[in-house]
Structures are given as structure tokens and as C-alpha cells.
């Protein structure tokens, strides 16, 4: 027996979720398969969260095309997804006359939105920026978002509009079944007219499983520092150096939550471990831009991976052997920015192969669940009157209430792990990094999810949290 769908999406990163969200507006039966226990567990969970402006698109590439296609969709997406971007703008700083020439290229690429500013002008709004800055390009169009928040919002909207999500389901084989394609995942078989491979770092492996020729995805790591919210406002805009051929360089950026991120470096590595050397490189790169950046007040470090192909472009193509399988490979930066454009493009491609896209009458915008820390006292009072759990703070650093934790656990596709709670409601994401809320979360998760301590995990299936109960003595023996 196998379940039958119009489209199966493989991978619950920001791209997979964006495709799911896009398709959820049409009368289709859509399934998203994710090998981890939650969405946003791979490439999407660790990046800078910048929605790069037009000036940062890469001309004459698919990457650049989809980047540009995405930008006009952002405002609409904000409404539909019930999220808000931080409209902070960006400064690209040049340290020499030679570097300044690059600013002119950026300006030309960005059209009329940006302007070149002098050190004196910059100092007014970024007082901590290096004195050695020669000139800068200011682009007001640049926005920032939490990549978790975006991915979760996409997934929740898709879910609310009928997309099914199955976790712990790694795709291990494709099969031909007449005109339809079948996928084996997590011990089950799923059949669909189309499958969309949004598997990030695993995307070329899946293409190979279909017998398609594509070069191996290579991971390039970038490490980051996360600064305490105490320093919110220290840097108000995304501050880029002049980019290199490899990456946009080590930058400093505010986050919508009030932290400051410094990173990423660019190194060949396929694990998300951090290293002293890498962090040192990031520290140097960040201090080149903002010499007094209080990195000693970082609350944590992390690293993310860029899934790249040799030509550094996105490769989106139908399988040779399975005409219904669409591969999305090499979706590295600006994948987050481009996700809306990619989703629309995927829609076009599937339509061109015969998928009927009939708009639903009842497509619903996401109604975001309230965030206690962002509410006024009057709004809080109202919520507490409805449900006293709104008056019970679980995470003191980020002011997260029991009501929010419960909702994150119960609302599907819900949080099943400590890390997925972090990505949804920011428990354990504050300055104590879970030393306080970590005391209470295990019990709450066990109670709300109806599981015992053996099923409590941090992220992956083997990331167990507790080894056993104390005093496990059997007196009857």
C-alpha cells in the first residue's frame, strides 16, 4: 500500500517549506518528507538571515534571476506568513580607493535604491564602525529575518492549508510506477505525480539515486558569534566588507531579536563543529569592520554549511529517468533570500510538465501566535485572563511563557525536540543558553507530549537528554 499525492517535497528546509507554502495555495495534495525530526534542521538553521538587496544579486546566473524574482514577493509574503522583516538596510564598506570601485558596481547593480556615503556621514548612524573606512555603499533595501522564523512560518502556513508533513523519513530510493514516481522513505512508500528534491546538502545524492548526473555538493562552513541582547543597537545595519569571489565575507549584522551576529568565514568542512581557528578568523574579520565589537559578550557560537556546486550557481532541473522528479541542487546563499522566487519558479516548471495549478478559494493567511515578549501589558493582561499559562514565564532571558511553549509543542508541524522549541519560541536561545529554562522544559515536554524521558532529545534521534532516573533500584529483586 502506498499513499498517493500530487507533489511530494523532499526536505523541510527553507526552500522545501517555501515550495510547500507556494503549492498550498492550489488544489493539490502535497506531502513534505523530512529525514530529521523537525523542519529547519540542516542548511537553513544556521545562516546569517539576511534578505540581500538587489545590489547583491549575481548577474547572469539562475541564482541571480531567482534572487531578483524573490524580492518583489517579500512584502506579500510578510502579510501571508504573518512575519515581519527587520528593515535595517546595509552598508558595504571599502577600506581603500580600489575597494571603492566595487561600491560603484554595487550601486549600478542596485539601481536607484542605494547611495555611496562618506565616512563622516556613516559615523552619524554607525558610531562604532572602523575609522579606517574609506567609503561605503548604503542600501536601504536589505532586510534581516530569523531563518527559523521564516522556515517555521512557511511550514505552518503550508500545514494550515493542507500540506502534510512526515518527519524521520529519509528518502532511500526512487521507483518508476507507470507515469508516477514512488519514493521509499522511513519504511514506507509514497507515490506522486511530481517529487521536488529540496534536500540541501543531500540533494546531489538524491539526484544520483535517480540516476542523474550532477557533480557532488560540497559543503563550505561558516562560523558565527552570537552577541548578548544587551548590545542591541551597537550595530544598526548589516555591515558587509567588499565581497570576495568566494563569499560575501565576514560581516556584522543585527538580528530582529536584538542580538548581533558576526560571521561567517569560508572554509572547507562538512561538519557544523566550531573551531578556535575559525572563530579567531571571524573575530578578526568582524573587528576589521567594528573594532570595539564586544565579542567577549557572545552567548554562543555556531556554524552553518553552504551546499555548493563547482560553478557556484543553483541547478534546478528535471530528472532524466524520472520525468516527474525536479532537483534543486546547489541552493547556497542567497537561498534564503531567493526562496520565494525559487518556489514560484518550481511552480512554473511543474506546470510546464502538466501539473494543474488551480487556486484554492479558501487559502488562509497564517495567524501568528502571539509572542509575549513583544506585547503590551494590556495585551498580556487579556491573554492571561483567557489562559493563565500566559502568566507563567518559562524562559526568563527571552520571556517565553508556558502558553507559547505548549502551543509550539501541540501546533503541527509541532516541536518534538528541545532545539525545535528553540527555533519556534526561543527557549534556550537567550543569554543563559538554557541553564534556567532547561530545568523545566524536560518535564513540560514529557507532560504535554505524553512521552517518557527516553524519548527526550535535543535534536536528532540519538541526541538523548537523560540517561536514566536516579535511584533506579529494584527492591523486589
Amino acid at each position, binding site marked *: 500500500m502506498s499513499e498517493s499525492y500530487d507533489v511530494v517535497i523532499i526536505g523541510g528546509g527553507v526552500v522545501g517549506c517555501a515550495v510547500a507554502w507556494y503549492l498550498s495555495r492550489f488544489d493539490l495534495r502535497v506531502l513534505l518528507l523530512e529525514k530529521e525530526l523537525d523542519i529547519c534542521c540542516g542548511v537553513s538553521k544556521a545562516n546569517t538571515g539576511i534578505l540581500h538587496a538587489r545590489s547583491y544579486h549575481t548577474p547572469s546566473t539562475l541564482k541571480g534571476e531567482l534572487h531578483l524574482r524573490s524580492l518583489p514577493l517579500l512584502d506579500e509574503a510578510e502579510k501571508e506568513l504573518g512575519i515581519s522583516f527587520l528593515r535595517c538596510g546595509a552598508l558595504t564598506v571599502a577600506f581603500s580607493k580600489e575597494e571603492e570601485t566595487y561600491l560603484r558596481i554595487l550601486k549600478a547593480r542596485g539601481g536607484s535604491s542605494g547611495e555611496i556615503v562618506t565616512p563622516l556621514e556613516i559615523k552619524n548612524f554607525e558610531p562604532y564602525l572602523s575609522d579606517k573606512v574609506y567609503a561605503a555603499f548604503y542600501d536601504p533595501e536589505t532586510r534581516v529575518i530569523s531563518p527559523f522564523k521564516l522556515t517555521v512560518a512557511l511550514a505552518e502556513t503550508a500545514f494550515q492549508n493542507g500540506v502534510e508533513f512526515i518527519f524521520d523519513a529519509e528518502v532511500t530510493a526512487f521507483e518508476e510506477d507507470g507515469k508516477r514516481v514512488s519514493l521509499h522513505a522511513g519504511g514506507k512508500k509514497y507515490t506522486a505525480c511530481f517529487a521536488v528534491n529540496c534536500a540541501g546538502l543531500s540533494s546531489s545524492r538524491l539526484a544520483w539515486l535517480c540516476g542523474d548526473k550532477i557533480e557532488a555538493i560540497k559543503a563550505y562552513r561558516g562560523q558565527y558569534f552570537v552577541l548578548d541582547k544587551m548590545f542591541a543597537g551597537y550595530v544598526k545595519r548589516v555591515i558587509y566588507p567588499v565581497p570576495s569571489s568566494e563569499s560575501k565575507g565576514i560581516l556584522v549584522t543585527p538580528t530582529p531579536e536584538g542580538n548581533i551576529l558576526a560571521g561567517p568565514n569560508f572554509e572547507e568542512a562538512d*561538519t557544523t*563543529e566550531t573551531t578556535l581557528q575559525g572563530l579567531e578568523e571571524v573575530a578578526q574579520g568582524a573587528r576589521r569592520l567594528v573594532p570595539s565589537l564586544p565579542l567577549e559578550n557572545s552567548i554562543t557560537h555556531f556554524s552553518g554549511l553552504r551546499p555548493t556546486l563547482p560553478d557556484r550557481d543553483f541547478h534546478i532541473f528535471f530528472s532524466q529517468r524520472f520525468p516527474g522528479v525536479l532537483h534543486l541542487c546547489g541552493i547556497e546563499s542567497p537561498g534564503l533570500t531567493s526562496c520565494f522566487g525559487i518556489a514560484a519558479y518550481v511552480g512554473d516548471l511543474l506546470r510546464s510538465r502538466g501539473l494543474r495549478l488551480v487556486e484554492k478559494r479558501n487559502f488562509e493567511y497564517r495567524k501568528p501566535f502571539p509572542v509575549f515578549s513583544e506585547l503590551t501589558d494590556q495585551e498580556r493582561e487579556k491573554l492571561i485572563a483567557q489562559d493563565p499559562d500566559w502568566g507563567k514565564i518559562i524562559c526568563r532571558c527571552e520571556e517565553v511563557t508556558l502558553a507559547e511553549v505548549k502551543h509550539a509543542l501541540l501546533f503541527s508541524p509541532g516541536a518534538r525536540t528541545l532545539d525545535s522549541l528553540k527555533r519556534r519560541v526561543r527557549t534556550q536561545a537567550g543569554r*543563559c*543558553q538554557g541553564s534556567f529554562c532547561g530545568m523545566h522544559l524536560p518535564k513540560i515536554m514529557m507532560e504535554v507530549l505524553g512521552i517518557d524521558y527516553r524519548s527526550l532529545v*535535543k535534536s*536528532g534521534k540519538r*541526541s538523548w537528554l537523560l540517561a536514566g*532516573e536516579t535511584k533506579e533500584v529494584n527492591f523486589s529483586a
Partner: protein
Amino acid sequence: MAAALSAWENGARRVFLLERGEELGGILNQCIHSGFGLHKFGEELTGPEYAERFAQALKRTGVEVLLETPVLRLSPDRRVTAVQRGGIFEFRPRSVFLSMGCRERTRGMINIPGGRPAGVFTAGLAQYLVNVEGYLPGKRFVIVGSGDIGLIMARRLTLEGAKVEAVVEIRPTLSGLVRNYVQCLLDFDIPLLLSHAVSYIYGEERVEGVVVCEVDSKGQFIKGTEEAIPCDTVLLSVGLIPENELSRQAGIPLCERSGGPYIDERFATMREGFFACGNVVAVFDLVDYVTLVGEIAGKHWKESEKRTPRFRLLPGEGIQIVLPHYLCNPRQGMLFIRAYRALNKAHLLFSFKGKVFYTFPVPVCRPSEMLRLESRRIPWPEEGGEITVEITGEEIQGLS
């Protein structure tokens, strides 16, 4: 609790105690080992027992205790906004006593690179899981830092049947109390690696081990000394930070060195009507001192207007912290002093305008054990001004 009691005993009649936890006592409730109250009560109590004495005493007063009521905001004009299941409350008292305690330093603050597997806990979090919730967070432990919570957890975990492979301390001396070293590590054959640091945590999903490395006198890793220790859990006991987020909101001047508000001998802060007591001022080594400080502060509840300090006390050579920072009335109060290094045959030197005017002998001093001195014993100069406190002596190597 000590401040509330003391304020009540000294005539305050509208006293509210706002507690974010479900019970009074804070972290004491998870400290089920004994050793609390030796100074205060002359007997060895467990943490919950110690807390219980104060909770009981409070019941005999009219202090109104609000549990599960964290403070959301604190304004410079003493508006206190708190939340609980019943709603949001606002208070505007004559005096506010800050006693939010401290928080543990985390992995991000000490830069241990590596993977991000499950199984890295602060020692206090692990203590809560074991002692209150009844779960073992792992089976094979490496403890980073020789702070008291880490030492006590080493013993606790051993008693629960877990294996503690080592306690790794980056400094050449112990961070916690010597009595905890003896009772928690020596008695249980748990190795203490001084001048060592964890340079890497590895593990895909759950911790699989750490790399431990020797460090030189500047705390830099010595190449070639790396050694892997397999384990499934890493506990961090690498110091505590006073929790002054609310103090900051209220615009109370903070001392970078002690981590808490600048205070005078009454434990009044530099902002009108705000007192601070306990670990929110600086991290004390004994709860008895925390209590004492609360009692001192509570006594002065009426004095919401500011006083002009006569002396400013400055930490000099060899000194980490001197409390209080200011003295208005030097005949009152108690000085708390923490040294940087362990010393034998030491002397505390008090100087004014470059001249030592008082010397106080200290046979043995350790950074982990605060020195305490009654202010009135010191022959303060007639004139006001800056006083520098220094300590000199013979440096102690290792644990000897």
C-alpha cells in the same frame, strides 16, 4: 528572604516578596548537600533546610510572599512590573531590594569549540535535574571548572552511580572551597587536573568525548599535550555572574569588577531607594554571607534618600573585589574582600593618599574564600577620599 525579614523586624509593615520560582529559597532548594548555616546557625544544614528556616520565620510576619511572580520591568523611579498567572501587577514602593542572585557562565562565554551535541550542561542545571527532577543527565562525565557546584556535582553523580572521569581546571589553583575538594573529589578518587582546559567537545548527536590540554601560565594551550577523554556528558562549572538585567533597566550604576551595583555599607545602591543584597551584588562563597548582607540591607529599609559617601574603596594589587564600594558611615557594616591568588602569611594593606594606615594579618587566603572584616575595627582617616586595599604574601602553588 533575609532582607524581607530584616525589614519587617525593623518596622516595615507593607513588605512584598516577589519570587519567580514556585517555592522560596531559589537555588538553595536544589542544594541537598549539607554545609549551609555553619556561621549563621552553628550547625550544618542542607540547602532546603536552610531556606526552610527563613520561610518559616517569614510566615510569622506579615510579609506578603508572591510566588511564581517574576518581575518583567523595573524603572528608575521604582515602578516594579511583575507577572503571574493572575495577571500583571505594578508596585511602587519606597524601597526596592534587589536579590535576583546569579546565573551560570555558559559554554559560549568560555569559547569551547567543537560540535553541538546534546549532553553539555551547566552544573547547576544538572544539579536541578538530578536533585529535584530525579534524572541522571548522563553516565560518564567530565566537569569543566572546579567551582563549588561542579565539585559537589562530582560527588553527587558518583553517589548516583555515574562515573566522573575528571574535573578540569584552567587555573593552577582550585576555584571552589578546599573543604569541597576534600569531601567531593579526594574522598571519591576523582582526579582534578589543574592548569588544564577542555579544548574541544566532540560528538555527533550526543557528547562522545572531550579533548583536554595543558595550559601555560597565561592560560594558552601547550601543543602536544592534548588528550582525549571519552565521556557522554560535559558539566560546566566555570563561574557565576550576578543577574543584573533588572538593575540595568532601573539605571543603577554597576561595577564591572564585582558584576553588581555599586553599594555602600548599607548595601544601598547609587540610585535612590534601591538596595541590593546577596549574589546579585557579587558572588559570595557562603550562603551565610548572603544572608548577612540581606539582613544589613533590610535594616536600612527606611533610608530611601541618598547619602554622600565619605570613602571610596578601590581594589589594589592582588585584590579581585572589595565590598562595599563606598562607605558613608565607616563605623557601620562589614567589608568583604576576595583575593586573586592563594597566599600564605598574607597581609591586607589599607592605604590613603599612598600611605598604608592599617595592616591586617591573614594567615592563609584563597580566592575561593572571601575575607571578612568589621568596618569599625579599621582606624579610618579623618579626611574622606579614596582608600586602596591590597594584599601581599607568599604565593601558594597548587593545593598545598
